[in-house]
Structures are given as C-alpha cells and as structure tokens.
C-alpha cells in the first residue's frame, strides 16, 4: 500500500515537473514585452495541441498527420460559438438560426469543441483500427487534405477560403495556461492508466501484445478519442489566439509544426512533448526576429524570409539523424525519482532478464 502511494507520487512527477517548467517559462514571458507575451500564449496553444497529439501518437507509436483535423473542428466550432451573433449573421447568412444565436464565452465553448472533435474522432476510428505504419500515415494525410478541401469550400459554415474573421482574439497567457495544465494532467492520467500501459505494450510489439490479450484496436481507439478531445480544445484556443481562421491555418503546415515539436522534444514521453513545444517556440520566435531584420546591438540584419523554416528544418533533420529519440529520448522528467521508488520492479525485471532462455 505504501509502495503504491510512493509510486503514484513519483509517477505524477513528469506532469508536475512539466507543469512547473511551463509555469516558469510563462512567468518569465509575462515580464517581457507584448510581443513576447503573445508568443508565450501561442506556445501554450501549441502545447495543448502537441500534448493532445502525443496522447495518441506517443503511446500508440502510430504516426498521425490527421490530428490537425481535430484541431480544425475545435477551432471552427469554437469560433461559431463565441463570435458576436450580429457578426455571424452578416458573415455567414446561411447558418442555421440556433447557431447564430449561440453566444458562449471561451471557457464554456472549449469543452463543447473538444466533444465535437471527439465525435469526429469516433468516425475516424476505423482508420486506426485497421491500419498502421505507412498506410496509417498516408491515410491520415489523405484525411487531413480532404477535410481541408471541405473547409475551403463549405461557404455556408466556414466561409470557404475567405475565412472567418472577428473571433474574439482575447487569449492571454493567463487564460491559456489552465488548459495546458489540464491537458498535461489528462495525458499523464491516461499514460499511467491500465489502458495506457497496454497501448504502449502494443507500441513496442503489436503481435506480442496481442498474444498477451491486449486488444490493440480498442486501446488505440481510447487513446484517439482522448487525444482528439484535447486537440479540439487546442483548436478552440488557437481560434481565440488568431482571431481569424482560414483553411491555411489548419493545414499540413500546422501538422508539421506540431510533429516537429514532438519529434525534437521526444515522441515517446509526455515531458518530451512539453519540452519540444517550449524549445521550438523559443527558437522560432528568435528566428522570426532575425528574419524580420533590424538592429541587434552591433549587428544589423537585412530581412531574410525563409531563415526560420531553414533552421527549423535543420533542427528536425539533425534530431532525426543524431538523436532520433529527441531531447528526452523517451524518458520522463523526474524518471530517476520513479526508478528509485519502484526498485522492486527493477529487481524483478533484472531477474527475468537474467533467467536463461528456454530451449
């Protein structure tokens, strides 16, 4: 009993430490200029999207380009719930009356947006049930593109490629932070649940896990649904960060940015998702400033659009080549704590490894 309590406390260390890290960075950003604060808010939004994507991709090991679909659902549905009814009537005259009259605050709209994304993920679940590896990658990419085409043409609801404007752009570090912390807690709760362990077992070896009675499809669906919920909320935050939405905001570009953050941080741990988001956000902001040009003390720079993309691409490339596990390489923050507390498990594992191979 006592051991279990220690394991629980130590097991929540990654969430606690990740949260602490986010808090410190956000606190530092609060001291900075308005631009810095806006970047920090964007970082928190990306954090929610990355943690959401991590819940599925990290635990299942199935690469998904499709999670931006859930972000898109969350973003557009939040926009439709929180915009001024008068503005909605003017921009989207063909919208059903009850949607036009809906006027929620962001905090009330986000869980609804998450649930809508969750519903969409249930429709998508056959994809993860039947496919893995490359086929899953291509299928999720195809899903992303078709949803993007639909968003770009569904004039009655999304205003097509013109996009929606006039979403309250009121997201601040303070209002975004609780959602990211919530996402981290939810991700950890799933990760240490029985389903999370079973899913990670199937990630390491799907056939072996299945032979031990793990129903891979079921566990993947559970992770997908939770993951979509978080991504939907992330999408809603994103809409309130941007203030305007076009199909291009929820396209392959966003997918790649989220995957870049996850891979550089470390795809196989929650701490990796958080650290990657922070690292890439800070790097990208610095690069944007270089790209825009200007005077940096003794050095004067001309504007060079493209530098951000080149450096971020090189970061991804070098990560993949030199440290494929990312910054965290599958470890969680505070993993030493966990190891110390579960020494019994370690001992047992050593015995199993030391036992002679049968036959």
């Amino acid at each position, binding site marked *: 009993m006592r051991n279990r309590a220690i394991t629980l406390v130590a097991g929540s260390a990654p969430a606690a430490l990740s949260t602490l890290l986010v808090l410190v960075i956000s606190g530092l950003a609060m001291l900075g200029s308005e631009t810095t604060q806006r970047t920090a808010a964007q970082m928190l939004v990306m954090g929610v999207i990355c943690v959401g994507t991590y819940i599925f991709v990290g635990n299942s090991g199935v*690469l998904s380009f499709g999670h931006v679909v859930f972000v898109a659902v969350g973003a557009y549905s939040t926009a439709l719930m929180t915009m001024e009814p008068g503005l909605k009537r003017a921009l989207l005259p063909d919208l059903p009356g009850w949607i036009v009259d809906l006027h929620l605050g962001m905090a009330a709209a986000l869980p609804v947006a998450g649930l809508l994304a969750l519903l969409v993920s249930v429709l998508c679940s*056959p*994809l993860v049930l*039947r*496919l893995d*590896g*490359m*086929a899953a*990658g*291509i*299928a999720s*990419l*195809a*899903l992303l*593109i*078709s*949803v993007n*085409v*639909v968003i770009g*043409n569904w004039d009655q609801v999304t205003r097509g490629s013109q996009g929606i404007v006039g979403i309250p752009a009121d997201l601040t570090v303070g209002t975004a932070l609780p959602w990211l912390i919530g996402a981290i807690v939810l991700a950890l709760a799933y990760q240490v649940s029985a389903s999370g362990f079973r899913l990670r077992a199937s990630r390491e070896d799907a*056939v072996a896990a299945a032979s031990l009675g793990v129903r891979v499809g079921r566990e993947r669906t559970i992770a997908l649904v939770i993951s979509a919920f978080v991504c939907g909320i992330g999408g809603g935050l994103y809409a309130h960060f941007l203030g305007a939405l076009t199909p291009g905001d929820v396209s*392959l570009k966003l997918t*790649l940015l989220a*995957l870049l953050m996850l*891979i550089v941080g470390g795809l196989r741990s929650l701490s990796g998702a958080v650290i990657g988001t922070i690292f890439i956000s800070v790097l990208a902001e610095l690069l944007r400033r270089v790209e825009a040009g200007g005077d940096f003390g003794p050095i004067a720079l001309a504007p*060079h*659009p*493209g*530098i*951000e*993309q*080149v450096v*971020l*691409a*090189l970061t*991804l*490339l070098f990560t*993949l*080549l030199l440290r*494929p596990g990312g910054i965290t390489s599958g470890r969680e923050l505070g993993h030493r704590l966990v190891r110390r507390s579960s020494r019994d498990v370690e001992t047992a594992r050593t015995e199993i490894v030391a036992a002679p191979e049968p036959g």
Partner: protein
Amino acid sequence: MAQNLINALSLGSLYALIALGIALLFSIMGLINFAHGELITIGGYTLLAFHGLPLAVAVALTVAVVVAAALTMERLAFRPARGASGETLLMTSFALSLLVQGGVLLKEGADPQSVNVLGSLGASVDVGGMTIGKLDVAIIGVTGVLLIGLAWFLRATPLGVQMRAAAEDFTMARALGVRADRVVATAFGVSGAFAAVAAVFLVARTGTLTPSMGLTPVLLGFVAIVLGGLGRLWAAAIGAYVLALLSVMLQAYLPTGLAAYRDALVYLGIIVILLFRPHGIAGRPQGVRV
C-alpha cells in the same frame, strides 16, 4: 469524350513520372519521399535560371541539377538514416522538404514567378475535329519513352536486375552481394531524373513557380501509388493513369455544386481503398509479418 481521354492520358503521364520516382525509392528502401516534391521545385527554378538557352540545353541542365540534388539528399540525409523505421525516414524527408522550401524562399522570395518554356510546344494541332496540344503529345511521348527505358534498364542491365532484387527483398539481396549504396544511389538518381522531367512538363503546363509548388504533385504521386498498390513499381504507373482518368472524368461530369469537392472525394477514396484493399486495387495481399 476522346478529348477527355487525351487530357487524361497527358495528365496521367505526368502523374506517372512523379509516382514512379516515389515508388522506386519506396519499393527499395521503404522510404516515402516527401522531398520528391522539392526535387520538382528545384527543377522548376533551375529551368527559370537557364531560361533563354535553347530548350534542349535548358532541360539537360535541369535534369543534371535535379539528379545532383537527389544524390546529395541521399548521401547527406537518407544514407545516415538507412535502416531506420519507415516513420523516421518519412519525417527525414519532411525535414528535407521544409529545408529546400525554406532555401528557395530565402533565395527567390515567396512571390509566384512565371516562366514560359513552351515556345513552339504551345501550339496545338487539329486531328479529326479534336484540338490536341503539342505539349500533350510531348508529355505522352516522352513519358512513354522513359517508361520503356526504365523497363529495359530494370530487365536488361546488371544494375537494374540488382535494383529489382533489392526491391523484392533488400536484406536478401545484400546477402547475395548486391552493393546497397550503389543500388540506392542509382534509385535516387533515376528518381531525380524523373522528377526533373516532371518539373519541365509541370512548369510548361502551369507556367508559374512558387516555393511550395512541389506539394500538390507529390501528394498526387502518393495517391497514385496507393491506388496501384504500395511497394509495386509498375502498379504505381497504372495507378497514376487511373487517377488522372478519375479526376478528368470527375471534373467533366460532376455536378457543379460538387466539383469544388473533387479533391476531397479523391482523397476520401484513397482512405477507403487503404481500409478495404490495402494492397491497391489490383494488388496481391502479402503474408502477415510476425
């Protein structure tokens, strides 16, 4: 109807060039090369740089530059990553794709640029009441020659036979003495050459260049490969022609309200195929890997 067929054949040839370039690498090393689109971009901008030279010279230089770019990608990024999982390779190719796009953006700026490579190819001829663009004829003809050339190369030369062996079973081929580096580098070279030719035709058709111009072609290439069946070389070419036929027919006969959703339908179709016929329309299922 016949007009549509010619269009489909021309479009299909373009898709086939792209799809084969991708399928070649996929069948040999399990790499889904997203950066193939950027090879096309490099080809497009090279063509712009050599604009003014005689067309044949410009095309030859373009092929040379793109092949060099493909070989560089192989040497610097994919060779160190060889043996990694398919997902890692895919992300490596994404990184390369972003890198080249960023580089082009840095050098050429984001604004679209136009280039006219057509010259006399812009004209069209009347055959039995149909208007056939000379460009369409050139695309169909050149692609035909290249496909036959590739088939000959794969059947009749030692390197080609080694490539087929590697595509069948890479590990086994290596064990039997096939030199992996040489085979993979050759595959990248051929893939680059196909990308260069595709770039020339693509630019000739559209006349515009942007840093992200490679995205749509590479996605269509993937679609063609999935249609034909993952990992089978010639099936990719068949898939390309089927895809072109589908999209031309959908364009021609879809009610106007739905025409805008054509691409969505095509990509949803891909998902359905992957779900129910993961080895392509005409594919043969392979044994379950345990």
